């Protein structure tokens, strides 16, 4: 499987999805993709094929709540909202991300 340079690694995908939904918004998969792309100014591009299995897993892990609903274009779509567990997970993911970043920066300073 070839991978474009700015594809998002799946672990980070979780962080980004949770962050996207963090303020309690109710979004379907396509909107999440679009949101991430937009806020990162097209720097990050969600690999669409892995988004849905990831959403599914996150729902199974209890981080997201999923339900079927109608879009304004009258299409059936699955809408996701973040749960309490999801918020806790988001905090963890953010912390580990921050640790990673600071670790990388610290090491970079010494090289």
């Amino acid at each position, binding site marked *: 499987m070839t991978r474009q340079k700015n594809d998002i690694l799946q672990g980070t995908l979780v962080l980004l999805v949770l962050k996207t939904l963090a303020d309690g918004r109710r979004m379907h998969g396509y909107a999440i993709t679009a949101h991430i792309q937009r806020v990162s100014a097209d720097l990050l591009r969600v690999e*669409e094929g*892995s988004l849905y*299995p990831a*959403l599914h897993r996150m729902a199974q892990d209890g981080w997201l709540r999923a339900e079927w609903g109608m879009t304004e*274009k009258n299409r059936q*779509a699955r809408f996701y909202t973040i749960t309490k567990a999801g918020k806790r997970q988001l905090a963890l993911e953010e912390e580990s991300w921050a640790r990673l970043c600071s670790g990388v920066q610290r*090491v970079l300073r*010494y090289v």
Partner: protein
Amino acid sequence: MSWFARLRNVFRADKVSDEIDREMAFHLAERADDLVDAGVPPDEARREARRRFGSYVLQKENTRDRDILVWLETLFVDFRYGLRGLRRNPVFGLTTVLTLAIGIGANTAVFTLLYGLLLRSLPVAAPQELARIGLVNITDPYAGSASLIPYRMLQQLRQQQRSFVDISAWSTPGNVHVEDQDGTLRKHVTGLVSGNSFALLGLRPRLGRLITPSDDVPGGPAVGWPVVLSDSFWRDRFGGDPGIIGAPLKVSGTVVTIVGVTPASFHGVWPGVEPKLYLPMQFLTVLFADLDDLNSPRSSVWCAAIGRLKPGVSFAEANAEVVTSQPRLLRDFSPPDFTRDHPLFREAKLTVESARTGLPTFFGRAYSAPLSLMQGLVALVLLLCCVNVSGLMMSKLHERQHELAVRTAMGAARVRLIRQCLTESFVMALAGAALGAAAAWYGSGLLLQFFRDPMMGTWMSVQPDHAVFLVTAALAVCTTLFFGILPAWRASRGNPAALLKSRTAAERQMAGRGFVAVQVALSLVLVALATLLSQSLIRLRGEDTGFDVHHVTIQTPSFHLLPLKGAAKLDLYQRMVDRIARSPRIRSAAVTWYTPLTGFQSTGRFEALGDEPASPDEATLAYNMVGPGYFRTMATAILAGREFEAHERRRDVCVLNEAAANFLFRGQAALGRYVRSGGRVGLERNRDARSFAAPITCRVVGIAEDAKFASPHEPPPRTIYFPLAADLDDGNLVFLMNAPTKADAVAAYTDALQEIVPTIPLSLFVTLQEQMDASLGSQRAITLVSTCFAAVALLLSAIGLYGMLSSSVTQRTGEIGVRAALGASRGTIVRMILSDALRLVGIGALLGMVALFFAVHAIEHMLYGVSEFDLTTLVATGALLTVVVITASFWPARRAASIDPMRAMRAD
């Protein structure tokens, strides 16, 4: 984490797949719409949307994962992957497999004994219907508590009962002697059975026929007595020759005819004791020429009774019936007066109990507790092995984190990863179980050496069978779950983004550290228990027993075979003693009624008699009857007076040990004073009950040094010794020979026997040391097992600690590099690693102390001369652990200290 949801998905694969399909369809439609809005033609927009989505098929496969067929398919792949992993990393594989083999093997070996002794059903038809009927409250040193019933009473019960299909009689296992291939007479354990016994069990012969009712008639059948051989005896003695049926065999001097062989799976009805020959019950009158009363109303013969319940009759119903018929049975068929009047007998109660596993034996009674304890110990070892392997797996997976992270990133399902890890664990557990089962096969044989009946000189015999393999297999599965689940769970949980970016940032191995602490705790418990037990054993073996354990050899001759009684028999014993003592290599020889350290001693009540009023306290004394030269032979010092002389054969003289003399005469000189028996004596071990029915008054002629009697665990009891009197009946006396080596004693005895009574077979020669070891058998076994496994535990903990520190140093390479670059000295870094290790060990040691506090109660009763919270033991254990910890930490610490800061930091 919702496991349940996942499990549910297995059964609703279609629905999940369908949901994702619908979601994807929506996504494609939205994307296509956007593209159309941007001016792309609809057809091309759909294609482009597809292209952007990536491999649609791949996504479908991800969901199809939950299908059962695929599940099995991947299981096989995982299995092969696991095998390949073992080959790829043989050191890890070998360590894991060996560790598991130790744990599983030890458990299987001990369980083999426990199962064979206590749990296995007799290999006969419908064993759950079998019942044993016996008089409870009659204590018998040989055969368990509730197993025996007077033979005549059994006959009567058999006639009048309605609960059983039939009731059969089994003698307690005894010995007969049969010539070996090379012509020497050898003793063999034998069972005497009533004619209906084998038919009642539903046994089919391996060869020929079994004992039938027509064989079991007074005087024997017209064609002569039949004998049935056990399968093992038939193989050992006759090489499995099928033509042996009909051949004559001389059994204890009587020629009998071999009529059949029992099936190979049948090892008798006494777990642990395997008779080699079976003869009809009535053969008892041949073996004991003076025993003509087997069929008389006054018969004193007791036996075990095995009945088969009628269909639909419960044990409770059978019990109720037997209890109602008890009063008449007791009145009509109780044995001679001396037992009938005894309170024990009057309190006796007929009971019916299950005989599914056979009849109770010495082994079952004596060894079930130690074996259970041992099972507990090895279970602890298995737990430790699992923890250790778990730790190894964890650090192994840690190295594979990148592989796993890549796979997660590519969308591998978490369940899939967990399953793969578990399959790998299972491959190793299976290999470990196979190796462990092989080890257990020999290990249980080795352990059996320690389980010996100190009276009969026989070893316990237990055969491993298919049940043991079931247990091994079950252990393999359990251990897999036990040691595999945590690493697998963690492996599936890694954060791939973090991991793929950098090695240094990985979170610290909290679980791995926890494992090390648990390992240290378990080792501490095992090491402390082993130390306590070893100390006890050393003390027990090293303590002054009051006699010479190293040079005294024991032989119990089968003089009951001779038609001699009373004084004539005593004369024969004395002739043998004189002849043996004449041999130049023999220091001294004697005969005695009981030898010490067999676990048994007779007791009775005695009081001092003298010028002043008799002492108010009646004292319970242990008593023994000994021939002239006993004290010299045993090297028990005579402190005052003398020992018995050859002409003294009446109980009008006695020797007291110091403790008895001081107690009876309150520290005043006892020599020349008189002792009187207070009532009946010796009924506790009714071997000699008859001769003590009348009160005795005897003069103290000697004071002997205190010596142990029944058990090395107990301090020397107050003991009174009597001369051997002519009224001692059937029981055989025991020869004691003090010689520089056992071989000298054997040679002297064999010569004497050849010259005086060549028709008597040789019995087992045992030294007092061996007898003591036999009576300490289970204790020695437990000490050995716990010591071995304490060593294993220490080794495992060291490996675990080493592994944990090594991978922690690897993980912290960057950090250590930074520290080094900032000017940390080698010493500082070594101290850092060591203190890390010591902190873990400290936590583990604390946990271990708490566990020890509870564990020590299990071995309390086996401790001798050491307190259960012995300070020396704790200090020694702590010191040992510290040494092991420092050794295990040394190499990782050294490696950490020699990290080159530049290279360490560039690695990222």
